[in-house]
């Protein structure tokens, strides 16, 4: 089976609980391991429609933009609960290690199952990260696994996984990881004269990109009759340098950041008979970010931001008639942000979300409709106006198998969503604008999925065309006086695109090897249609390439597995105007990895080696943030 296929749920549940209308893009355990990706962000690059904003290096911020709607429209969910960031609405996916992730799934629109939290209906797209669930063979009760990896930029990461079956129904898993890196790597910028001679050519070492990070996770999984529960504690602590932009005459900077992200969450889910299921979620999160600037040439900054979140949710689904079910979910979310910043607003937000959804499963047709109502209420300690907002956003999903069998399915959806202005947008001292409205996104999608099995070979193809429109886009805009900004609902983006993902897997019969291939291509035309009077009217929006794609090829032969992955991002522009001065070159990298499995005194081991950016391409994803050239790493994993 190709790893991109649906993985069967482990827990036997009511059929109501996992009824997805539209298939998704997924990378699971084995595929993730093959990619030798460091973080979830690196893995996300292999999904179609996704653009990664990568500031380079181990510690560089990595955020993801799906179908050009902007990072803030993406909900990131960790073991079933959305990771909130009321401060800036963005999640740095570079902070999430792939070490213990079993599955990363991307849903355009929403996860098209109606048994889910109200928040899950609310975003324009979502990525779900799921940590490893312990699985024990008969008679097994302990798993211990140690991993170590050493590579370029003095990267050292070690991790330990301990899984224990406490009772037949309850298991424990803990995972601890430590990572350190100097973040130093060589980069090169070069310019040529028009006659081909070198105008300048400079090589330097990336400075102030060092990082150390510790992550601890503790999970308790329990089985119920027709249900399950989970308790999770998470702690991430890191300190890093922020390398900053490389500009003329400036080669290093002094910004530092320390993050302490902790949360604990609980979920409880149970079905009552075949016709009713319920799920309850609770979470408390505390994020602390300490930012300081030690560069004596600029404003001395030493700020600490403390963010808290409390989240409660219930989701309930009932089968009204065979093939017709309905759900009702309610979420309550409370956010608070404190900071040691002068004239800070100290905002608090209460958000209520209520969703009603229904699903019809009639022969070869599946249809889902949902509507989410939200009510948000902000308060600040300053005299900002009290900000309340309510929204109603519907979505409709349909999937049909036009022919007998399930080898071909056609799907379509239309969805409205919005993103709330973040605390920074609304209240950040001079910049914020408390009068902002939410930014809205409307999506239309039409797609197909083709699946063929022939003996041991398997072939699948997914293709979608889509049209999105983002309006009331929240952007920073001049305030009128000398270099001051404010946030405004000013901006409209028209996005048309095509996503194609194909995969094929087959045995090479004469050798006993297995070959799998996966290719993905994205075309996007995302143009700014805000104002015909501007010079960038109908220009491609910044950092969105027209063409992007990736390719993964894996070969398994006995104990050896080889993987080659290729990523391509076409030309882009780093500002609104698609002029020669803002033009960014395409970039494409090839990564190669090999793993060998063996036993060391009966303990299964896995030795791996990787070369990333094999052809040593010197490129920027974000202008003036150079990416690492060719780099290598080796790793060892032992199961005890």
């Amino acid at each position, binding site marked *: 089976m190709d790893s991109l296929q649906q993985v069967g749920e482990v827990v036997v549940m009511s059929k109501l609980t996992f009824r997805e209308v539209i298939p998704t893009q997924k990378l699971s355990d084995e595929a993730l391991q093959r990619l030798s990706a460091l973080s979830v962000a690196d893995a996300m690059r292999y999904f179609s429609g996704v653009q990664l904003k990568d500031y380079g290096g181990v510690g560089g911020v990595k955020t993801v933009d799906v179908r050009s709607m902007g990072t803030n429209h993406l909900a990131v969910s960790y073991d079933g609960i959305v990771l909130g960031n009321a401060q800036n609405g963005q999640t740095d996916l570079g902070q999430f290690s792939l070490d213990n992730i079993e599955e990363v799934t991307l849903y355009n629109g929403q996860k098209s199952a109606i048994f889910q939290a109200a928040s899950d209906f609310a975003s324009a797209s979502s990525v779900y990260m799921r940590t490893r669930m312990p699985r024990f063979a008969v008679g097994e009760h302990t798993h211990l696994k140690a991993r170590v990896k050493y590579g370029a930029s003095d990267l050292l990461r070690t991790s330990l996984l301990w899984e224990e079956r406490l009772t037949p129904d309850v298991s424990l898993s803990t995972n601890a990881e430590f990572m350190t890196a100097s973040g130093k790597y060589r980069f090169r910028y070069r310019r040529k004269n028009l006659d081909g001679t070198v105008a300048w050519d400079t090589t330097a070492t990336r400075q102030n990109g060092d990082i150390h990070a510790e992550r601890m996770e503790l999970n308790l999984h329990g089985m119920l009759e027709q249900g399950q529960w989970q308790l999770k504690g998470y702690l991430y602590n890191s300190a890093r340098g922020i390398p900053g932009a490389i500009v003329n005459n400036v080669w290093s900077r002094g910004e530092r950041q320390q993050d302490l992200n902790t949360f604990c969450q609980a979920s409880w889910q149970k079905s009552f008979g075949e016709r009713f299921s319920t799920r309850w979620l609770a979470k408390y999160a505390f994020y602390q970010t300490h930012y300081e600037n030690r560069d004596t040439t600029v404003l001395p900054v030493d700020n600490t931001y403390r963010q808290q979140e409390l989240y409660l949710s219930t989701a309930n689904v009932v089968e009204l008639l065979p093939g017709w079910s309905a759900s009702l979910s309610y979420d309550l979310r409370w956010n608070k942000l404190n900071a040691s910043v002068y004239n800070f607003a100290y905002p608090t937000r209460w958000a209520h979300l209520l969703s009603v959804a229904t699903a019809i499963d009639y022969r070869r047709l599946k249809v889902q409709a949902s509507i989410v109502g939200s009510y948000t209420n902000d308060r600040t300690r300053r005299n900002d106006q009290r900000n309340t907002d309510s929204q109603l956003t519907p979505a409709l999903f349909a999937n049909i198998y036009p022919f007998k069998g399930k080898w071909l399915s056609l799907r379509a959806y239309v969805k409205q969503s919005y993103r709330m202005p973040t605390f920074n947008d609304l209240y950040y001292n001079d910049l914020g604008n408390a009068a902002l409205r939410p930014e809205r996104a409307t999506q239309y999608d039409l797609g197909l999925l083709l699946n063929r099995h022939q003996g041991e070979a398997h072939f699948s193809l997914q293709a979608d065309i889509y049209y999105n429109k983002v309006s009331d886009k929240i952007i920073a805009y001049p305030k009128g*006086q000398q270099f001051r900004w404010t946030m405004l609902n000013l901006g409209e983006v028209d996005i048309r695109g095509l996503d194609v993902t194909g995969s094929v897997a087959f045995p090479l019969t004469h050798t006993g090897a297995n070959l799998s291939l996966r290719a993905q291509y994205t075309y996007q035309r995302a143009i700014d249609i805000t104002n015909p009077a501007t010079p960038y009217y109908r220009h491609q929006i910044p950092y969105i390439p027209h063409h992007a794609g990736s390719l993964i090829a894996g070969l398994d032969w006995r104990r050896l597995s080889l993987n080659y992955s290729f990523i391509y991002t076409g030309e882009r522009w780093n500002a609104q105007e698609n002029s020669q001065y803002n033009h960014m070159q395409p970039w494409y990298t090839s990564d190669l990895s090999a793993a060998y499995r063996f036993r060391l005194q009966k303990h299964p081991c896995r030795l791996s080696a990787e070369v990333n950016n094999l052809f040593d391409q010197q490129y920027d994803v974000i202008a003036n943030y150079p990416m690492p050239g060719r780099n290598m790493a080796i790793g060892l994993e032992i199961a005890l």
Partner: protein
Amino acid sequence: MKKPFHSTRFTKSTSLYHKVDEFVPQSRRLCKPIPYLPFSHSILTVLLVISVCFSGCRQDDEVVMPTVTDTGLAVGSQYAGLYVLCEGNMGANKATLDFLDLTTGAYQKNIFPSRNPNQVKELGDVGNDCKIYGSRLWLVVNCSNKVEVCEAATARSLGHADIPNCRSLAFHEGYAYVSSYVGKVGGTSVLGSVYKVDTLTLRIEGQVSVGYQPEEMAVVGGKLYVANSGGYQAMQGKGYDRTVSIIDLKTFTEEEQIDVAPNLFRLRTDRRGRLWVTSRGIEGDAEHPSRLFMIDGKQVAQQFDLPVSDFCLRGDSLCYLATTGHSYETGVIDISTGNIVSRQLLKPSPDYSVETPYGLIVNPETGHVYLMDATNYVSSGWLLCFDPNGEFLWRTSTGDIPGHAVLLPKGIGHAETIPDETPASGHSKYILAVDEYVPAPGQFVNLMPVADDNDTPQTMAQKCTEAIGGGRGGLITLGAYGGYVTFHFDHPIANVEGERDFAVWGNAFENNAEPAIVMVSQDTNGNGRPDDAWYELRGSAHDHEQTVSQYQITYTYDALKDVPWTDNQGRTGSIPRNTYHKQEYFPLWLKGQGTLVFNGTLLPRNARLNGTTYELPSFDYGYADNRPNTDRQGCSMDIGWAEDGQGRAVSLTHIDFVRCYTAVNQVCDNIGETSSEIMGAEDLHLDLSLLFMEKYHFPKNQ
């Protein structure tokens, strides 16, 4: 003054611009071969080919070329062009320099990379100020922590000075003063400072602490005035700075601070020696709005209830730009009366709109107004041009955030003198100061340097010092026959046996010599003034049969008319006006005396007609502005050539003063009168002069 002066130096550089124009479309190259793949499977290859070739692969990053647009309007004036410095958003490394060629009307966007193709990462991050001093263009690049110094005529970099978080520029007597946010640290507050930079060596010579986050500066009466903003302080809740720091430039220490208003920003001096300061005020605080203040003698003398964000002085007119939110107002204050005489300098028209007005500059000669529009800060801005009546003429696209501009005077040549190390002695081989400047009438008089009705012989000498002193390579005109300039060095120049002793630089080039006779003098009475006996250096043409010794000419003032003259040879004539230069040709600061009388040696006319073009070949040797500066020997003088008024050779051990005067009395139809120009002078053997000085215990000149 001949016409080629008008065009030739600049056609040299404009020809470069035209070349540049052809390169605007970026060349596209064929894709490189597909990289070698470790798998040779056909499907893989096919997929890869598809994935790479649908859009193209990387090309070499090439030096970006300017984009040239035609504004359709050439403006004849003493200015060759307008440099516009565009800030570029922070971290974007998009500070760009644009150039409006006033002689052709062409607007060249982003000229720095192609003029300086070897500069790593181009001009840098966030341009914050630009000014021209002498022959050099100074560019403050804030987030690149440097001040880039270029040849003004070409924008070619000569080097840079590293100054952290630098903001604005001021100049005085061979030094640049750069305000910087970086200075003394006190807890979480950092006082700002002013750096002193030698304009020749670009070396930092000193640093003085001022208030918080200093912005613009100006020099009045040997004192440097600095507007302190306190922007960082306010962000930390400690309130804005409200003061102007006064720095004594002799001791380079902060003398006192004047309390003005919170968040000061612009600070400029007017022709009456007063200061004009703007405050940006406190946002959201109605009691402290943005305002304009006039400071006279350390006191706030007048306050204008206008939120002025930028202004430009033109004579007694202060043209201002005031902004509130997204609305703006332009107007004029008569600084002689302190009255707002217009609140609509620029007339509204449906032909244009301004999104984020960010800067304003006025051509002081023609009155054209240029307004800079920063639009949304992250895309290209606009430069708008208005005629002197405020009627909109044109607009053109600029780099990101145009906010700073400087006019490039004509006649600033390529600096032949490149910065060299100041000798350990602390002496300079260049002119220290100009003592007298008495040009004869001419088409460039009152323009090079600029003069107005309020100028005096002293202020004009000072302006000449600023132009040609210290190796700055500016240009001054001596006007028609007899006009002269007298200058001295910071030491006597020794007469070294068998060697040329000093050089005088002009702007002569092939067939364009406008010779000036060079005179020398010793300060025998020791009063430091050039009032002693003068000796003429005998050049090659002194022996010519047509050379007239003891020649005398008298010019008579006739306002804005051809200037008539009579001489002691019984001839009369005039210096005719032309259409290129419309200012008064008689030195304005001397018109009170009605006539100008000059005595000296008259060299023969050197002009000849070749077809329809005048050629002015040079004499062999011994004159200033006679040979091109590249002909070092041809520009060099030997004190041994000195002779007295009767033609007798004199032997001088050293000289203290040098004088140059236009030595030909000729008018060549369309190119006008022949008038010498001086760009500077240089002691050719500083070490020997200093040795001489030490030996005879000469004090250092002031």
